[in-house]
């Protein structure tokens, strides 16, 4: 169903082969002749690998992107924060009810300026995933993010938002404390916050849970991230067009145009950040480097705009999305 999934498995096998050969190289007993043989072998495998990567990634399906965006090895928000910033002082709590670990927020230095960072954090292992509620934020998470963004506005720091969530938490406790209100108020505040906002969808940009921290002057998206109104499986279950069959998620993904390029063309994001060959999880450092450069470039541009102009332009961008016909 996913070409990429098979390919990802094969690629890992190739990686293992290379590792084996590299261990061979490192052995002291190896002869100089054998060594150069092995080197050539490695180079050949690598070339083949690159070719395969290029080939497979040149025609990924929407469903491939869904699987890539959800890949368990994909770098998460805290990975990006750790790689991009020299320091990060995490702030906690919404000053109302609690602290939601599904959203992290804090201050970080970036080339001489201070940035307010917010982002969903999915969690790497089983324990962290539970702690982080799989990146599904509760009202407290959105309110913490809002508090830190207001702090950024007050003190004149740009905001960087990392978006990576399957969806906002929707169970009863979240409903009771106003998850809908929390998302809506965040969008309201972000739509007129008097400081530059940059958002990066790094993995799953899941519906209301995502847009609740993704209203920004410059919205970027990693090449294999997804930004979707609904998980494709759920879409397939709901719509007759897909026989109400969750297995037809890949078709729904295609219908929903889940690719960064199409998302860009539809005007929902302003820039696509290319990932390292094979996807961000194959080179987290390289991915972070690209994200960092894109963030810095965006902030530099936004910083040069007077705040009032910035806020007006942000509203105009959000408001002027069309996609309708007037008769």
């Amino acid at each position, binding site marked *: 169903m996913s070409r990429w999934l098979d390919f990802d498995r094969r690629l890992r096998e190739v990686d293992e082969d290379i590792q084996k050969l590299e261990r061979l190289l490192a052995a002291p007993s190896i002869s100089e002749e054998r060594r150069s043989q092995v080197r050539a072998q490695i180079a050949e495998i690598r070339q083949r690998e690159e070719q395969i990567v290029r080939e497979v990634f040149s025609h990924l399906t929407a469903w491939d992107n869904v699987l890539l965006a959800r890949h368990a090895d994909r770098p998460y928000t805290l990975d990006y924060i750790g790689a991009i910033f020299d320091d990060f002082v995490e702030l906690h709590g919404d000053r109302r009810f609690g602290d939601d670990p599904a959203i992290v927020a804090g201050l970080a230095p970036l080339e001489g300026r201070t940035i307010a960072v917010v982002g969903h954090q999915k969690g790497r292992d089983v324990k962290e995933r539970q702690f982080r509620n799989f990146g599904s934020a509760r009202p407290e998470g959105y309110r913490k993010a809002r508090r830190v963004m207001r702090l950024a506005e007050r003190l004149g720091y740009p905001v960087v938002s990392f978006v990576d969530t399957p969806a906002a938490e929707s169970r009863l406790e979240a409903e009771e404390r106003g998850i809908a209100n929390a998302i809506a108020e965040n969008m309201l505040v972000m739509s007129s916050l008097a400081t530059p906002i940059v958002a990066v969808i790094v993995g799953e940009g899941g519906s209301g849970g995502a847009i609740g921290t993704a*209203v920004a002057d410059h919205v970027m998206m990693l090449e294999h991230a997804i930004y979707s109104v609904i998980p494709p499986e759920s879409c397939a279950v709901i*719509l007759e067009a897909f026989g109400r069959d969750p297995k037809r998620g890949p078709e729904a993904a295609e219908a929903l145009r889940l690719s960064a390029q199409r998302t860009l063309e539809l005007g929902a994001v302003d820039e696509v950040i290319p990932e390292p060959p094979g996807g961000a999880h194959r080179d987290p450092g390289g991915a972070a480097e690209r994200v960092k450069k894109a963030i810095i470039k965006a902030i530099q541009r936004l910083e040069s705009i007077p705040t009032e102009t910035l806020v007006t332009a942000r509203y105009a961008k959000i408001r002027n999305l069309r996609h309708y016909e007037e008769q």
Partner: protein
Amino acid sequence: MSQHRPTDNRSGAEAVPEGLWTKCRQCGNMLYQPEVSDDLYVCRHCGHHSRLTARQRIAITADEGSFREHDSAMRTSDPLDFPGYLEKLREDEAQIGLRDALVWGECTIDGIPVSFAAMDFSFRGGSMGAVVGEKFVRAAEHSIERRIPLLVFACSGGARMQEGIVSLLQMAKTTAAVGQMGRAAVPFIVVYTDPLTAGVFASFASVADIVIAEQQSLVGFAGPRVIERAFKIKLPPGSHTAEFQFEHGMVDIVVSRRELQPLLVRILRLVSPRREADAE
């Protein structure tokens, strides 16, 4: 903003299924059709509030003959070229007589001019795509230009998934427009009606200045059945209702449909004091 197309504000009555008698969905009692609209589509026997079409809502809310619809011709461009979407739209258009799930215009209520919008759940489950978003924003802009309140009747199943990411963005677009109203100091009143969920509840409908809800309306971020299915849990009775949202501080006032109109008039008088003075 420029298309003023007068419509008969009683035409909504046509959307009611034909025949002299209709059955209450809650208690099963038969209701005599000619009395139904006089009763505001509330069952005489059990008090059940029927869902109203946008035209019915306009008919029972706006001063008679005062409603002037705007942008009635606006249609989605089907941005994703989504399988089967246009066909479904054409079906709803034919059946409901609307081109999308929100009707907006200007009218007076007890003589007070308002910018007015009503969503229609019978059109694609009241879902919000590019047209609903744009019409909401135009209604907001109209209220800013004219310095009159915006009154919106909201019912919706959420974002219009056939418009994909475009529909998600309407959440930000409509909410940002509420911010513009705030800065322009024009009041925004929303009435939650059955059912209101997901993307509309979690956007403009949650950030109104005053939130009223019709009693017993289903109101929630996720529909209760969606949650029960997804998490394999049983929800307590009464969750995800207007009353539940009131209890948790999300709604200002829960009212029956009979009490709604006088309440709206009181509120509109309060938030349009200068208008009132002008009219005198």
